[in-house]
């Protein structure tokens, strides 16, 4: 599949993904700004210090970082025409992304049973909206990766489709860098 180059010498789809990522920076920037603006202003508990589970989230963070490694190795395999490796690494992204989401579901469920809900306090409202939107992005990414894996299993993901995987990879890595910021700002700097 041949894409037309823009005047910048970059594929239209790749440029479109980068523009989308730039807009997503502003979107997540607004959510992080809201979280930080209301930080420490909750009138009732639970507070971040009481409820956040750093060891669990550290493991989740490591899992998401390793999913980025798997993604970039999948792209490398697709571009070099190694279908078996491409399937393995795409599968890796799906499994690691699924593990991250599983950790988030566990965390949300635990918080809910500890009394932290969207309506409980400002921390609950801003925390669930920020991390929930991030989780939704990871979910979209996992669905995207499953689509690519199915394409690969059907033999439709050769080197000529490298751009498709690269664009999907850009999205996945962006979700990763957003989590790098969230992990530091929300979990570690309390």
């Amino acid at each position, binding site marked *: 599949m041949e894409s037309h*180059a823009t005047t910048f010498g970059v594929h239209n789809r790749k440029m479109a993904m*980068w523009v989308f990522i*730039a807009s997503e920076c502003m979107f997540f920037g607004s959510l992080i700004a809201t979280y930080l603006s209301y930080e420490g202003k909750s009138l009732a508990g639970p507070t971040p210090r009481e409820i956040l589970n750093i060891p669990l989230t550290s493991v989740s963070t490591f899992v998401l*970082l390793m999913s980025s*490694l798997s993604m970039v190795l999948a792209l490398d395999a697709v571009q070099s025409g190694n279908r078996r490796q491409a399937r393995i690494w795409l599968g890796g992204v799906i499994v690691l992304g699924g593990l991250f989401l599983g950790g988030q579901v566990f965390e949300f469920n635990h918080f809910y049973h500890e009394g932290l809900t969207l309506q409980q306090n400002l921390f609950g409202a801003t925390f669930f909206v920020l991390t929930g939107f991030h989780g939704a992005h990871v979910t979209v990414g996992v669905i995207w990766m499953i689509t690519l894996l199915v394409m690969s299993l059907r033999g439709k993901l050769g080197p000529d489709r490298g751009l498709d995987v690269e664009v999907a990879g850009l999205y996945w890595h962006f979700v990763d860098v957003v989590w790098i910021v969230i992990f530091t700002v929300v979990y570690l700097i309390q």
Partner: protein
Amino acid sequence: MAEQSTHEAGGAQAHASKATYWLIALILGILTMLEVAVFYVPLLHSVIVPFLLVLSAAKFALVAMFFMHLKFDKPVLTTVFAGGIVVATVIILAMMLLFGAIGPGAGM
């Protein structure tokens, strides 16, 4: 770091080698462990915010440069991404200033 050329439909583009990707992943893992370690060391609590922000920025840059290929891609893509980050940073600082999280009214 070793680099290899990769040809994609419509244009040649240099990417990092597999060994580089593994090395970056190792560094990212070490930086994450450092972040968590700093969180649990009481002696470092006075410098925890700048320390964690620097580590976070380093991880962010490594992923963007190597995994997102900005180091090897056209500079215009870095400009587009940096534009979004600058606007996001201004939004965060402006909101925090307006709500008194930073600046003269902080902590009130």
